[in-house]
Every structure is written in C-alpha cells, then in structure tokens.
C-alpha cells in the first residue's frame, strides 16, 4: 500500500489519486476493486489526465467516480459502455481507457456491445464487477447467476444457464482474459497492471460480492463461497519495465510474456500443465470450470498478436482529436476536384 506520504514517479501520493467518497455499501466488493485501480494507477504512475474512466449503469458502474478524481469520466447508459469506449478510444487512442461494468450491465442488456467491442479489440481495460445480481435495482438475478442459486430478493431460484464472461470473451477473440476475486487484492492489482499495459481489450471478470443482496450462505458469489472454491491457476506479477529486451520464455514453473510497451507479465504456474498462451487449453479449462463450485482465477488467456482497433483502422499517430484544421478540411482545390467527379 505504501505510506501516506510516499510518492510515485510523478511525485504524487496515493491520495492524489483519490476519487469522490464511495456511496456504495460498506463491504461491497466494488469498493475494493476501485481501491485497487487507484493503487495500481498510483504505483504505475499513470498520468490522470491521460486516463479515461468509462462505465454503464449500476452500483459497479458508479465506482469510476470513486477513483482517479482528476481523470475524465463517462458514466454512460446501461449496457452501453462498450460503444462509448469504442468512440472515445477511436477519437483519441493516446488515452488509457479503463472501463468498469457490472454483470447485469455487461451480461444482460450489454451482451451485444460487449461481444462486438471484443471483436474489434478496442485497446482498453474492461473490468466487470461481477456479483451475480443487479445490485442497484435491489437484487434480481443477473445473467451470471449460477444455476440453482437461491436469492430471496430475486424471488426464488435461478434456473437459467449462467453466462461465463471469460468464455464469452475468449470465443469472441479476446487476447487478454482473466478472472479474479475482489477479495484477492494482490491478484486484482497485478492483473490490472498487466491489463493496463496490454495492447488490446483486456477483460478482467472480477467476482465482487454484493454484501446487501447476494452474500448469504450458499451464494456462489459470496465472499465465503469464493474463498472456499477459488482455484488460482497462476500467480501473476507484472514487471513494469525491462531495460533490455531479453526475455526468457522459461517454460516449466513459470512463464513470462512481454507486452508491447516493454512490461513483462510473469506467471508462476500453479497448475503445472497450464499455459495461458494456448487458446484451446484456455477454452477447455473454462469448460471444465462451469460448476459453481469450480471457480478458477488468474490469467486465463493471453495473446499479444491480435491487431487492435487502432491498427485495423490504421489511425495516424496523432490522435484524431488533435488533428489540425488543415488535416480536417480539404482544400478548395479538393472541392473543385470533387465537383468534377459529379460532372460528365
């Protein structure tokens, strides 16, 4: 955490990365995640004016207000953060975009936009604060609620197949797929750091218990349950800079993946046979962890080779928003030329 007066590379204290005071429930997993975002932003020395925070609607989607108070934020519409993020990042690809959504926001109303954002590989961190319910509307089941779950606020038992957002992301072509737990601060932090440095859409599906509506005994999204059933697939640490490009992909006990910015994701394997660079393995893993009492966390899949939307759109280095009038308005001659195309 660091002492209160400790400063980062920018000479800022962690407090300088404060947002507004949280209005979420005391103990809500979302608060912890907001804190971890603040923490890693400070640790990585992210310039706040270069960060944009985006969200939809929900308790989770409120959380961007509670970190990085000097960053621009956009609290969009329910389920529509992906499109707004796509627009913003396209307009200015020099920004560091952090999206925060909920399981209802992403898995229910937002399913279409979520899938298509990932298809485009818009470079951003996409955090889902996943609690299996609609917190803000008081506890209805969301699409990630496990089958057979009981919830009195939702009026009974959920009989529908849950949506697995990591599974959804990976088959849509996501190159950075992770699951975590708001109670595992270290893992959340390291995944966030890697995600911020990953070039492409980095999904982190974080189980984030709703203490008010879904933390009861038997809830597969409760603190107790996740603590009991969480299997950490790999121990991740992010090493921000590496003076020389000298990476050993030491297979075996650990794996290092170099990100395009120079940072390195170092993974100590807990399951020896698992390699998160192998998409088929990742998919099989996810398939094998479909039961509520099988929760796998860690970096599930990583692939640095996907073209991002910025690359696909072939955007100029200068972000579109910084182009000058001369770049934006063709000349009089161009108009004359264009008019000639209309003439026989």
């Amino acid at each position, binding site marked *: 955490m660091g002492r209160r007066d400790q400063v980062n590379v920018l000479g800022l204290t962690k407090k300088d990365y404060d947002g507004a005071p949280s209005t979420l429930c005391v103990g809500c997993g979302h608060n912890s995640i907001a804190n971890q975002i603040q923490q890693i932003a400070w640790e990585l020395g992210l310039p706040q004016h270069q960060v944009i925070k985006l969200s939809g609607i929900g308790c989770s989607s409120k959380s961007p207000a509670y970190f990085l108070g000097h960053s621009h934020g*956009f609290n969009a519409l329910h389920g529509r953060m*992906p499109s707004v993020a796509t627009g913003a*990042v396209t307009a200015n690809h020099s920004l560091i975009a952090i999206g925060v959504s909920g399981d209802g926001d992403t898995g229910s109303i937002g399913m279409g936009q979520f899938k298509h954002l990932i298809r485009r590989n818009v470079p951003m961190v996409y955090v889902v604060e996943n609690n299996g319910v609609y917190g803000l509307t008081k506890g209805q089941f969301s699409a990630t609620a496990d089958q057979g779950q009981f919830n009195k606020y939702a009026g009974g038992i959920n009989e529908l197949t849950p949506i697995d957002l990591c599974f959804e992301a990976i088959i849509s072509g996501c190159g950075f797929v992770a699951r975590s737990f708001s109670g595992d601060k270290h893992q959340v932090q390291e995944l966030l750091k890697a995600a911020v440095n990953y070039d492409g859409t980095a999904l982190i599906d974080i189980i984030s218990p709703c203490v008010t509506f879904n933390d009861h005994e038997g809830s597969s999204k409760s603190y107790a349950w996740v603590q009991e059933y969480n299997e950490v697939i790999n121990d991740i640490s992010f090493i921000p800079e590496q003076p020389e490009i000298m990476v050993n992909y030491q297979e075996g006990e650990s794996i290092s993946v170099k990100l395009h910015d120079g940072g390195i994701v170092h993974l100590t394997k807990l399951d020896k046979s698992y390699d998160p660079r192998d998409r088929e393995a990742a998919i099989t893993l996810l398939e094998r962890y479909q039961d509520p009492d099988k929760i796998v966390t860690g970096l599930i899949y990583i692939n640095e080779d996907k073209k991002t939307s910025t690359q696909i759109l072939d955007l100029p280095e200068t972000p579109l928003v910084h182009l000058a009038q001369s770049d934006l308005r063709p000349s009089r001659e161009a108009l004359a030329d264009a008019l000639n195309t209309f003439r026989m």
Partner: protein
Amino acid sequence: MTITDVLERGPATGSPAVRVNDFSINVASPNGSGSQTSNMVIIRALFQMGIPVVGKNLFPSNIQGLPTWYIIRLSKEGYLARKEGTDILAAWNQQTLAQDVAELAPGSVVIYPLDWKQEISRDDLYIYRMPIKELMDTFDIPRELKSRVANMVYVGGVSYLLSIDLDAVEKALSYELHGKEKAVRLNKQVVQAAYDWAKANWSTKIPYRAEPMENSPVKGKFLAEGNAAAGLGAAFGGVSVVAWYPITPSTSLIDATRIFLKRYRHSSDGKPTYAVIQAEDELAALGIVVGAGWAGARAMTSTSGPGISLMAEFAGMGFFAEIPAVIWDVQRVGPSTGLPTRTSQGDVMFTHYLGHGDTKHICLFPASPAECFRFGWESFDIAERFQTPVFVLTDLDLGMNYWTSEDFEYPDKPLDRGKVVPAEDIKKPGDFYRFVDVDGDGITRRTLPGTDSPYAAYFARGTGHNKYGVYSERSDDWEENLQRIFRKIDGSRDKLPQPVVSRMDGAQVGIISYGSNEPAIVEARDMLAAQGISTDYLRLRALPAAHSVHEFIRSFDHVYVVENNLEGQMAQILRLDVPEKADRILSINKQDGLPLTAKFIVSKFLEMEG
C-alpha cells in the same frame, strides 16, 4: 395483322401537337436487372443536351425481381419535382406490363419487347416493339453480361423516338461506366444497333421530342444525389469518426462519405485522418459517436427511421450530457419497417423530441444537394457550438435520386469548435467548471479528456448533476441545469440556418415547407400565380424555428404548411410555437411514399382556399 402492325402502332385518335422537352418517361423493369445504368444514361444524355431533367427511382425493398419504375421528367421550364403520369413507357417488366399500360393516358407511348407474347389491346396508344434477343444475338456478349446490356435496347429505342443525341448518350455511357472503354464500346454498340433497328422498322412519329437547349437553365450544373453531397460535406466538415449501421436509404450517404474521406482526407504521413466503423447496430453507432464527441472528435452517424427509434436513449443522453454529435436521418416511410424504399418526412416530430423526458433537439432540413453539402459540414459547427446532438433530416427522394445542382460553395468559415477550454486556461481549481453558464447563453465550457491540467477533468453523465458537474439529486440543481439547457436550445433559433423566403407581389397567403418539397412548391406557386394567386413562401431550414418564421406566420391571415407525412408534423410543431395562430396554420400533406407533386399541392390549396 402484318408484322409492321406488331412492331408499331399509332393511336386511333389521331396525333396531338408535339411536346418538346416537357414530358415524362417511365422505365419499368425488374429490380436487379441492371436497368439503373440504362436509366442513368438516358437522364444524363438529356442533361447533356441542356434539358432540365430529373429521375425518380421507385425501387422495391428487394435485390432481384420485384418491380422498379424509373420516372424521368423533362421540363424545359426547369420544374424538377415529381409529376404524376407517364407519357412514354419503356415497359421492360413483363410482370407489370398490363398494369403499367392500363395506367397510361390516351396518346401515351409504349415501347416493349417483341420477345414477349403479350399484346396490348388499347387502341389509344402509340405502341412500339423491339426484338431484344434478335438484336443481342448480333453481338458477342459474355453470357453473364447479356441481360444487363440488353437494357441498352430501350435506350436505343427511346433515343430514336425522341431524337436524343447519340453523342450525348455516349458521353453519358462513358460517365456511368467510369470510362471503361471496352464496356462503353459494347454498350454503345447495342444502343446504336437498337437505334438503327428502330429507324429501320418504325415510321410513325410520336408527339414528344427532346431537343437540345441553347440557353439552358442547367448550364454549368450537374446531377447529384443528396447523400453523395452530404458525404462530401462531412469530409469537408472535418468529420473524424463515423459510426453507422447499414439501412436503406441512408447507406449510400455513408458510402459516399467513405469514398470522399478516402480521396481527400489523409495526413502528411499518408494515414487516414478519420475512422469509419460499421457498428453492430444503431444503438452502438450512436454510442460510438457520443463517445467520440465527448473525446473531442467530430463524429457522425447516418440512419433512417428504425435506427432513429433505436437511437432514442443515446439521443436523450447526448442532449442532457451536452455532447456534440451529428445524426443524419434519411427518412423513409414509417411507422415500423414500413416502406424502406419509399420517401417520407415522417420522422420530424419524433426526432425533434427524441428521448424520454423533456428533450428538444436541433434539426436541420436540407432541400438540395448543395444544402446537403453545406449542412454536411455546418452541422458539426452547430453541434460543437451548442454542445448537443444535431439531427439532419433529409429523405430518400433527396438522398438517393439525382437532382440538378449548382456548384457547392466552399465553407465560408473555419471550423467552429465551440467553447473548448485548453489546459493553459486551467491553472487552479475553479478555473473550470463544466456547467457554469459564464456567458449567460446557456452554453457552458467543456474540456476534452487528455487536457493536461489536474482541474480539467469532469464526469460526463446522464444522471442529475449540478453546475460543477457533480452528481446531484437536488431539485434546485435539476431545475437550474435543465432550464439552462432549454435556454441554450431556444437560444439557437436565430443562429441556425435561417429560413429562405421568396415573396410575390400582393401575396395574401403564406406557404411554409422544408426539405425535398422545394421543387414541387416552386412549381405549385407558379401554377397558382398563373391562376392569379400570389403566394409568399418560407422554406424552413432548422428547428427550433427562427423568430422570423413566427413573424412570417403572424403576417398572414393563414399559412399552409406543406409536407410529406400523414399527421402534418411540422405544422404541429409550428402551432406550438405560435399558438395564437394555431388554427390558421393549415396542413397540406400526404404520405404515400412518393415525393409530393405540384398538382397535389395546388389542388389541395385551391380546395382549402375554398
């Protein structure tokens, strides 16, 4: 019946006086048969001869087989509205032949294939037949091209009958076929062969003739679709993010935008200075535009009715969060999926108020390709100046048909980015608050993400907030904020494209209209004037309506609002603007999917004037 009878027959009634450059040609064909090129060749050849001409393409919502009618009007006086009735029918669709012929007035001309068995029993028509297969067999044309090229047969026939200049036809062909020599030659040969065949086989003369016009009113002008002009305008308006979802009749607007962007908008390093994103649907399209607008890009989308419905939530958010955006609505017939390939002005009211809660959007109404171009760029200035979504409402008729156009004017002012505060101006807390109305015009200052000052950031949101941009559920904050936004929108009235007024001496009555109705109104007013009825005419170009529109309304006992929808939507909006004249604002309106005609307007007008 001899073979000559079959090839050619005149009406039993004797022949009337010859009409030069003042009649209509209707080409009926099945969709997807490639007739569009032939039709364009005819219209362009006529235009080349200096004849004012316009084509209305009535195509089906299908790719192949359903009936299409392409109606070309020649008007030496330069009336380029749709006109009811056909004088010359090129009946190239077997399916609709009977009905198409049945609808003709006596003395009309029909040209149709000799290849078909059908006979036409009416004896009050000029009837000409052409042997397509026979003619085509004389050429060595690849099989897959055959059916398309076959449409050139009627071009030859029509050219012969009307004396259309074959050089003009060749020029037109060359334009349409992008100068591809081989294709031009081949098609030209077919036209020529058909022409020669007609000359050899037909002897009757029809009372219609196309003659080159010396002092042509279309001299120096060109033909253009509104959608193409709009796309060009956007490219010159500095659009940098385009997000869209395909929908007829809006798709070609984006197609044009992409073409012109590709041609004219590269940075010095050769990279595009724009991004075009095909979104997964219209919700996402406007979401992308709103996100880009917030980030500081000039962003636009284009859609039609169903897309407007789907954009309601984001439109309301853009309005309330005060984010610049440009949305083109190329209107087609609704409600619902309606008639995707027919024209309408049916979204006016819905779009003006788009979004739940109290909302009111700025809307622009271009009436010509030149105005599509102008609003194409100016809409961004307006959106950024007023920090709000701007809707540009055009329609299928203006968007997808070829209109005669003068040159587009180069933008007469630099990009207006509105009140964007740079980092230099924000040195300390309090230097910038997002929603404080510093200037008293309701338009507050904004910053863009990335602005390098710790005090530049604010939170954009669709929820209640106070003038400092902080979330608030307080009643006074809500009232203050929303009232200011309405003050801002209301304050735009006299700063948007102002109405264009055309007066006549002694006019006792006013006509108000907008958009693609323009040519029909011009013609209708002349027709009324010929009957001794003078009218003043105000063409509205934006909502909220300028004060001068209100003055115009007040200056008459009553006014007519002419529009292409069922409920008289613009009339309704104006009634709310000028309530004391509400019952003197009368509607001349219709919605049948076709552009309004002068005849309809005149007869309604006379009927209502009593």
